[in-house]
């Protein structure tokens, strides 16, 4: 519940700069709009990618976009955690009688990502009608699970990035390779990439469990074990556990910068 109080507080503080907020929102909308336009133009030029149609890739793009936007909205605190470490603000959180995960999550909500979210949802709607899939209740459920699983995985990656800051103090730009780069990669079904990329993004950073594995089920490519593939998104939630354990390990080893 305290989480929603945090949320209300941040919304209020955002509304103090209305014009800036709306322009930012619009900008976020266009970031993904142009990325999608680029994708559409590439499909216009090349027809298909590794046996996947434009509709299927658009579905992938929309799921990743929606998950990423939601994660940036609600778990932004971990993404910019290095600022708290550097300024020493994290010491204050440790003194309070609440969990650190909740407090860091509540420290920031990037509401402008709603622009990105809106764009991704539009693409999602279009992609659902474009793909050659009969939408049964099970498939709709899978789609919802994919998005939620994506949020879990991206949150996990953000947490891992924040854990690194316990030791480095400085935020590391290379974390972006896995968050932004992972987003770029997961915008297409992972099977189009070389095997080692696929393995990395399935086992180490499990983008595959909300990307191509359930997509195989949705598009009828997993005839042998449909239920198995349908349930793969659940693995994304399991991934949060080791991330949270690492977080606790990091908190225990935290040495304040002292300012």
């Amino acid at each position, binding site marked *: 519940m305290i989480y929603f109080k945090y949320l209300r507080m941040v919304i209020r503080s955002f509304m103090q*700069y209305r*014009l*800036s907020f709306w*322009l*930012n929102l*619009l*900008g976020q909308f*266009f*970031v993904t709009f*142009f*990325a999608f*336009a*680029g994708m559409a*133009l*590439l499909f*216009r*030029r*090349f*027809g*298909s*990618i*590794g*046996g996947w149609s434009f509709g299927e890739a658009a579905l992938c793009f929309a799921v990743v976009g929606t998950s990423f936007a939601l994660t940036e909205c609600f778990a932004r605190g971990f993404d910019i955690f290095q600022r708290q470490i550097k300024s020493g603000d994290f010491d204050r959180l440790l003194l309070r009688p609440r969990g650190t995960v909740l407090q860091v999550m509540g420290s920031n909500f990037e509401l402008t990502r709603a622009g990105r979210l809106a764009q991704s949802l539009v693409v999602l709607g279009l992609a659902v009608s474009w793909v050659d899939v009969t939408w049964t209740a099970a498939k709709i459920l899978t789609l919802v699970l994919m998005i939620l699983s994506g949020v879990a995985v991206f949150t996990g990656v953000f947490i891992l990035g924040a854990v690194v800051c316990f030791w480095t103090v400085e935020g*590391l*730009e*290379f974390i*972006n*390779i896995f968050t932004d*780069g992972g987003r*770029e*990669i997961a915008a*297409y079904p992972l099977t*189009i*990439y*070389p095997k080692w*990329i696929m393995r990395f993004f399935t086992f180490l950073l499990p983008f595959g469990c909300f990307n191509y594995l359930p997509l195989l089920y949705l598009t009828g490519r997993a005839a042998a074990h449909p239920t198995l593939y349908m349930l793969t998104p659940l693995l994304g939630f399991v991934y949060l556990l080791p991330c949270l354990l690492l977080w606790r390990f990091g908190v225990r080893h935290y040495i304040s910068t002292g300012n």
Partner: protein
Amino acid sequence: MRQYAALFKMRLIAGFQYRAAAWAGVATQFAFGFVFILTYDAFYRSSAQEPPMPWEDLVTYLWLQQAFLAIIMLWWQDGELLSGITDGHVAYELCRPYDMYAVWYARLVALRLSSVLLRCGPILIITVFLPARWRMHLPAGPKAAALFLLSLALSLLLVAAVSMFVYILTFITLSPVGARLIIGIASEFLQGSVIPIPLMPKPLQQVLNFFPFRYAVDLPFRLYSGNIAGSDALVQLGIQLAWVVGLVLLGYWAFGRVLKKVVIQGG
């Protein structure tokens, strides 16, 4: 003139101080270069007909884009100047006895130049020696190399001239995000940074010819691979130069106008 040169040099040296950031940037740009190549690789393999841009040219284009990112990306701006406009620090600038447009313009050029000189080296050297499918090719010839360098220098001036409009608009809207975000994002697509312009449909390509952005990225990188050559190259370089001069003059005029009406925020 001497004072502007001195300020330019000062900014350049200040930019060279951020070496650790530059290395992190190089690593990130490598990774993104690989990601983009991987995606295009899958597209090229699935393509039924011959794409309008040969694979070697595309890879070279993508690596050049990563190597010279600091020159071409328009969403990257001088945060100090932008926040100065909104928090009132710009008042000090107004008191100084120099031409503000010239100084800010020189500052933007120096910022990009110092960053690109730090970053482009490792990327250019390593990518030339990568395995065949990933390799960046050398310029099509000495003439192509010369035209490329000339055009890239003009790109730097062009991007700085367009950037000045971000600051001009910030004086009007007093919001440091809006103008920067809109110009930054739209330009990325119009430049050919999202996808290379030769891969776009023909009618869209013709539309993009009417904007200055194409001349900052598409032109120099295609001069490099010899995709644009001969008399066409000279004509397009002429257009690029005309855009630089035109936008600087327009910016100079607009900058003067907003400075007359400027309201200082805070104390």
